[in-house]
């Protein structure tokens, strides 16, 4: 069952092509890594899926709903966390979760907030303003917000970028368990190839706005004569032409 279907999306800024004819799908309970060097088009792609950037061409369907025609319903089934989109620092953790919970129409919101505070070890920070939390704590709050509405599609843009390895591992385990238990499709960007290999079922390599490679992160490097996913990433970043079939 497909939860995200991206078909031929393209984004032009003037004469510059940021994303060019990108198509892929994410299934229920599947974690797909969206990889690529800086400027490859990962965040542009995520922004288009979030409905905050209109594609120049192509279509996006979330849980079978066309994003352009059914924006509200499609986004009600989606959520995201990104390192560049912290929650307002002038609200407490609980206030932020209540505010966004109301925006996403979460039922039994009080109970849901309590559960997420517990899941993300945030109960002690319930009445702390987000702006004074450490970056790791803010990341946990952002992830709690991302799971408020039990989304069918979860977009995570470098979710563990500011976390120490132990916390990052715990969160990866939590997200993995959440994706499996709730049949949520996850689109995950990261520059940490160890993390990607550990958590993703499938990866897409973007280069210069196009999908260059796709496959299982555990077998893909060998298929292209590389030892590790990181070696493959470096090749995508530096010599993408050598990988084009």
């Amino acid at each position, binding site marked *: 069952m497909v939860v995200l279907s991206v078909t031929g999306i393209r984004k032009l*800024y003037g004469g510059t092509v940021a994303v060019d004819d990108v198509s892929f799908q994410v299934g229920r309970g599947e974690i797909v890594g969206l990889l690529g060097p800086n400027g490859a088009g990962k*965040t*542009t792609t995520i*922004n288009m899926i*979030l*409905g*905050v*950037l*209109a594609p120049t061409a192509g279509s996006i369907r979330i849980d079978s709903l066309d994003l352009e025609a059914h*924006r*509200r*319903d499609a*986004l*009600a089934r*989606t959520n*995201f966390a*990104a390192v*560049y*989109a*912290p*929650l*307002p*620092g*002038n*609200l*407490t953790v609980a*206030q932020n979760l*209540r*505010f*966004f919970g*109301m*925006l*996403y*129409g979460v039922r039994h919101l009080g109970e849901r907030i309590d559960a997420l505070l517990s899941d993300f070890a945030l109960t002690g920070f319930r009445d702390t303003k987000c702006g004074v939390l450490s970056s790791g704590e803010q990341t946990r709050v952002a992830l709690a*917000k991302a799971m408020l509405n039990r989304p069918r599609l979860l977009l995570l843009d470098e979710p563990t970028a500011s976390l120490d390895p132990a916390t990052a591992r715990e969160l990866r385990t939590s997200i993995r368990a959440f994706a499996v238990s709730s049949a949520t499709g996850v689109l995950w960007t990261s520059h940490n190839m160890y993390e990607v290999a550990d958590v993703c079922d499938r990866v897409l390599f973007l280069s210069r706005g196009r999908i260059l490679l796709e496959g299982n992160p555990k077998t893909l490097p060998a298929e292209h004569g590389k030892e590790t996913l990181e070696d493959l990433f470096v090749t995508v970043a530096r010599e993408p032409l050598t990988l084009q079939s």
Partner: protein
Amino acid sequence: MAIDPARVGAIALRQFYLFRGSITRTVPLFVWVAIDIVLWGFITRYLNTVTSAGFDFVPVLLGAVLLWDFFQRVMQGVTMAFFEDVWSRNFLNLFASPLTIGEYVTGLVLTSVITSAVGLVVMIVLAGVIFGLSFLSYGAALGAFVFVLFLFGIALGITACAIVLRFGPSAEWFIWPIPGILSPFAGVFYPVATLPRWMQAIAFLLPPSHVFEGLRALVTGGTVAADRLAIALALSIVCVLVASWVFRRVYRRAVRTGLIARYSAETLS
């Protein structure tokens, strides 16, 4: 598209959270209007002592100041709630949610209704207790005056939000002088007939000018012309509709250009 009251309420609740925890947000709700009322209250008292007996400046000048301050509070109620999202760089979180533009703007308006009502009550109490301004003297027309100014304040507030969304946070400084720029045309303190013809033409298009002309007519023993009130009301409604259309257009452009996703202090496209 239908407006979801819960999402509108969320915008107002967010603002309530901010006010509840911040003296720097709550104090300005009533301090500036209180200063204006006290200042203009004493000016009107002084004018009453130096001009011919029988004419009372209190309902004319102090009433006008009160209504003009109310209009400004309404406008700022909308813009300040919007600026909270600008300052906290919250657009991506907001607009990647199911919140619609209609719900967002309605939430800003609801916030403004509450904050401007606080200012209005403070002004009415101060003007009544200290300077003896009785709002009963304006009669039923007062409701129409307040409603027209409320609508126009909302329209300007939404327009101001559109300007900042279009040109970036630094465009905030375009917004604060707007009431000051309009006040000479609106005839807050003097009849519109005092103005040169070209200014009168602009004044006619501004709903507040009809309100203040009506106010002066009322306190000098005349009656408020129903057709002027109708024009003011119609103009206000048109202003709200145009402002909402402009905001929607600016938002759509921001989605097309990626401005929403990368909104920051450096944005000025």
